[in-house]
Structure formats: structure tokens, C-alpha cells
């Protein structure tokens, strides 16, 4: 029970009845949505949920941990391609795609462990860490982009160079009778939503725990944290692994959803986008990150549909404006404003 108490705490916005009522309402609406919408639209909109894990992971690493990693797309891509390789080779029977999901996220986590060890135990930080992580994702992109020939294959799965790997089966849940294939449709929606809620709540508990306390201490003053007896390298490494595993989860879900993964998902533009979502939302809080990421993604998609060229201009401008005007995030700024207003009426609510 004490663990559940950590669902709210100093590191997350929102507590008490007002917040959790709002939360329950949002979850209820999300669950009800497929009843009022076309299956095709529901399936398409899972796209937004797929990226939410990446955003939450970056929020953990950057917002809570203070480490600006430019290369989260590397883990997205590694997990996506790993899922493709495993699922193409082994098929989707007997729940093997679920195995592929777990193995791919594990692969991303393993890469993060190696890279993180190299970075944090090598005392690399700040700009240099940013450059190294950016280099990693770009190296992966460039490498995968030139795997076009038929000799570039893992088992039956061709890497296919710049055009990307396709044709992998979607996630399939083994079930009595016939398996449930998670095409972009209502079942995939609920599956992803459930995962998202679980990760969100789990992260809330993590950041409000003693681990989370130390993490933000390291962000605020790493020297002082070390001088309180904490091995900050270990905390940074664990945070990096968890956040990157979440990026990997995004990668698997995306690949399964679209049956497609390309090297561009690890390139320069792709690497910039999560930074935009998280910065605009408010990186130091999970809820504002999530809301901000959803809003920016929706805006980006709307722009792409209606006037495609301006989408990136708006993204860039949004990033600049956020940094200059509301460095803790636009949604974060709004959120604290709302919280201040709510807390000004305690007597009227008869508590």
C-alpha cells in the first residue's frame, strides 16, 4: 500500500481528489472513444500512443535526470528492427511476437546499458553527451541506409537499406480458439492504452520513490549528490536504461502498427522531434510531458495533412518560443497556473 502512496509526491504534478478524478475521467473517455468512432480511425490514432512511451522515457532521462540525450531514436530503431528480424524469422504463432516484443525492448535496454556505462562511468556529460548520443543514432541511420543488397539479411529478414524493412507480422496475442492479431484496430488501441496507463503509473511511483529523490538531486547538483554518498553513475545509468527501453517499446509498437521500419526513424529530423514534444510539454513532469507530446503530435499531423510544408517550421518555432518564454514547458506553465487557481478555492469545496 505504501507503494501506491508514491503515485503522488514531490516529483509529479497533481494530487488528491481533483487530480485523480480528472485522471479517471480521461481514462474513461479514452476507453469509451472506440465506441463512437470508426475502427479505421481508432487504429490510426494508436499512432499517437505509440510515441507516448518515447516521450515518457525522454522525460525521465532529461526532465528528471538532467541528461539531454539526442539519440533516443537509436533505441527506437534498434528495437523496431529487432522486432522485424525476430518476427519475420519466427512468425506469429504461439505468442512468438510477444516474445519478439520483449526481446526487442531487451535489445534496446542492452544497447542503453552499454552506451550508458560508457557515458556515465566515463564521466561524460552535458554537450559532449549530447554529441555522442546524436552520433550514435546517426551512425545507426547511415549504416542501415546502406544495407540495400540481398546479402544484408538476418535469417529470412532483409534489412533493405534506405527503403526499410517491411512485411513483419503485427503483434499477436495467443488466445483460445483463434489468436488475436493486433492490426491497427480497436483491440490494438486497448492493448496500447493499457500499456500506456501501466507505464505512466509505474513511472509516477518510480520518480516519487527514494530512487526518484536521488535522481532529481543529481539533476540539481550532481557534486552534492555524490558528496552525500550516492554513486551517481549508477543512478544515471539505470535511468538511462529505463528511459531507453521505453523508447524501444515505442519502436516495437510503431513497427508492429505499421508493419514497417526505416533508417529515417533514426535520422536527424526524427531525433529532433521527441526533444520538441518533451520540451514544449514540460520535461520535468510526466503528466505535462504526456499532454504536451500528444498535443504537439496532433498538431504536427494536422499540419502535415493540411499544409505539409509548414509543419516543421511550426515545430521549430514552437521549440524556440518554448525555450525563450516558457523553458519549463508550455503545458507545464499552464498546469501550474491551473493548480494555483484550483488551490485558491479550498473552502468552497468543503473539504
Amino acid at each position: 500500500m505504501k507503494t501506491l502512496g508514491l503515485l503522488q509526491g514531490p516529483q509529479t504534478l497533481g494530487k488528491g481528489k481533483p487530480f485523480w478524478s480528472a485522471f479517471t475521467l480521461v481514462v474513461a473517455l479514452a476507453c469509451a472513444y472506440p465506441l463512437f468512432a470508426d475502427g479505421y480511425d481508432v487504429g490510426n490514432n494508436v499512432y499517437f500512443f505509440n510515441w507516448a512511451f518515447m516521450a515518457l522515457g525522454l522525460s525521465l532521462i532529461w526532465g528528471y535526470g538532467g541528461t539531454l540525450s539526442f539519440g533516443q531514436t537509436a533505441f527506437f530503431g534498434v528495437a523496431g528492427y529487432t522486432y522485424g528480424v525476430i518476427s519475420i524469422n519466427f512468425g506469429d504463432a504461439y505468442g512468438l511476437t510477444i516474445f519478439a516484443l520483449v526481446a526487442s525492448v531487451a535489445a534496446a535496454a542492452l544497447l542503453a546499458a552499454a552506451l550508458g556505462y560508457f557515458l556515465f562511468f566515463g564521466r561524460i556529460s552535458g554537450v559532449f553527451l549530447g554529441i555522442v548520443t546524436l552520433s550514435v543514432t546517426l551512425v545507426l541511420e547511415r549504416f542501415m541506409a546502406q544495407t540495400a543488397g540481398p546479402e544484408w539479411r538476418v535469417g529470412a529478414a532483409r534489412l533493405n537499406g534506405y527503403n526499410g524493412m517491411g512485411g513483419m507480422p503485427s503483434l499477436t496475442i495467443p488466445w483460445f480458439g483463434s489468436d488475436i492479431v493486433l492490426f491497427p484496430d480497436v483491440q490494438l488501441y486497448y492493448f496500447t492504452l493499457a500499456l500506456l496507463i501501466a507505464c505512466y503509473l509505474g513511472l509516477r511511483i518510480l520518480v516519487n520513490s527514494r530512487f526518484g529523490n536521488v535522481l532529481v538531486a543529481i539533476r540539481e547538483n550532481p557534486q552534492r549528490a555524490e558528496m552525500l554518498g550516492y554513486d551517481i553513475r549508477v543512478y544515471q545509468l539505470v535511468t538511462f536504461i529505463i528511459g531507453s527501453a521505453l523508447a524501444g517499446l515505442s519502436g516495437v509498437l510503431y513497427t508492429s502498427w505499421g508493419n514497417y521500419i526505416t533508417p529515417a526513424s533514426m535520422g536527424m529530423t526524427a531525433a529532433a522531434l521527441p526533444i520538441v514534444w518533451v520540451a514544449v510539454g514540460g520535461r520535468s513532469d510526466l503528466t505535462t510531458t504526456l499532454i504536451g507530446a500528444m498535443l504537439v503530435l496532433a498538431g504536427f499531423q494536422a499540419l502535415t495533412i493540411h499544409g505539409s510544408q509548414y509543419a516543421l517550421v511550426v515545430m521549430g518555432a514552437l521549440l524556440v518560443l518554448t525555450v525563450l518564454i516558457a523553458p519549463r514547458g508550455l503545458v507545464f506553465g499552464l498546469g501550474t497556473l491551473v493548480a494555483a487557481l484550483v488551490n485558491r478555492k479550498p473552502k468552497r469545496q468543503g473539504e
Partner: protein
Amino acid sequence: MTVLFSIFSFLYQTGDAFAFLVLSACGLAIIFGMMGVINLAHGEFIMCGAYVCAAAARAGLPLPIAILAGALAAGFAGMVIERIIIRPLYDRPLDTIVATWGVSMVVTQGTLILLGSTMPGTGTPFGSFTVGPYSYSVYRVVLMVAALGTLGLLWVGFTKTRFGVLARATIQVPHIAQALGVNTGLVYSLTFGLGAALAGLAGGLYAPTMTLVPTMGSAFVVEAFVTVVVGGADIFLGTAPAALVLGAVKASLTSWQGQLAGQIGLLVAVIIVIRILPRGISGWILRERT
């Protein structure tokens, strides 16, 4: 005899890579080394210089003038960007990375919208010469000379002129410089502008050798960053030797495995060097007091 031809080829390739890295990195090195600002829009200043140079050259200006025009245009743009976007962020270095990344997206996409996906360029002047079985571009040798010349001019500028001394003082102890009557705002603007102008110069110099597309900056920016980071904060003790080392690495990998291997090798080199020399080459040479 063929050995000599191969050696010449290797030297040419290394010199070519060296020139590319020096010219694309020196502007970034000034801004990062002197101001601690990470300018991810660096590639766009290069593009600005290239575009202005190409336009000026096709309007009839002789190439050297066109190149200078490109440098000046980029320098001016730099001063504007500094005033509006960079100056509020001096105490937040990581935020300058994010903000300049935003600027980069806006400028690249904006150029695509306004000027289309390609810009007509100019041809490479001066033709080629042969050594043994290989032929080489004369212009690229000119670029090597230009790279060395730029380093030389910068050295003179920073150590011998008043501006150089003032700039270094302002950046290191701004409040003292201000107390001595130095217009620190102007110094910041000029320093950033100089960095941008050098980027524009690189763009102008390389414009005759490349297709001009709005994303052309990205071909320079990652490698420029790599050179600056490997080199450390000092241009002469850091960027120049880093460009030489990385140029040799890139040249050898390219001739062995192709262009992609060269690019990958460069990025891997960065990762390794940062691990061994966390303050870059110049930091190691100066054994800076932490």
C-alpha cells in the same frame, strides 16, 4: 612510382578532408570556444553563405566577391539571431542547443518553402590536374590554401588586434569588462557574427562544388561539431589538429571502404576521443585545471 602516386593521393584526400573540417568547424569553434554556446543552426549559416554566393555569382559578381558576400550575409544573419535568440540564453547552455535546433528547422524548411528544393549553382572553376593515374580538382587545392589562410588570419586577428583581446576578456569576465567600459553586448554580437560569417565563408567556398539544397547544411554540421568537440575549446591548439587527425581518419577509411565508412569512422572517432580526452585535444594539451 605507383607508391608515390598513392601517397600523393592520400595526402590530397587528407588535405581535402582537413580543409573541409577546418572551414566548416572554425566558426563553430569560435562560438563554442569563446562563448560556450552550442549553435545547431551552424549548418544553416553555411547554407546562407552558399546561397548568397551562388546568387551573387550568377548575377555577375566575380567569385571571390560573391564568396565574401555570402560570408557577410551569414555574419549579419548571425548578429540578428544572437540578439534575439542567443543572448537571453547565456546562462542556459543546454537550452541554446535546443533553441538553435529549432532555428535550424525553421530556416531549413522556410528556405525550402520560399526558394524551392534546389537552387541553381555555379560550376567548379579552374579544372583539374593529373598526378600519375589520378586527376584532381585544382579548386579543392585552392580550398586547402583557403583553410590555412583562414586559420592564419584568425590567429593574427585574435592575438594581435584589440578586438581579439577584448573579446576574450569580455567572454571570460563580462562584468569586469563592462566595468571597464566595454560594450559587452556589441562584443557578443560581433563574436557570434564572426562565427556565423566564417560559416558563411565555408558555404561560399564550397558552393561551386555542391548542389545547393536547403538541407545542405546538414552535410557539414555533424562533422563540424565532431571536429570542435574532439578539438576542444581552442581553435589553434584544438580545432586545427583535430581537423588534421580526423581528416586523415576519414581519408583513409574512405579510400579503403567508401564514403559511408569514412563518415561512420568519423563519428566513431568522436565517441572514442571524448572517452579518452573528455576536454578534447586542446584541453589535453593545456591540461586545464578543472
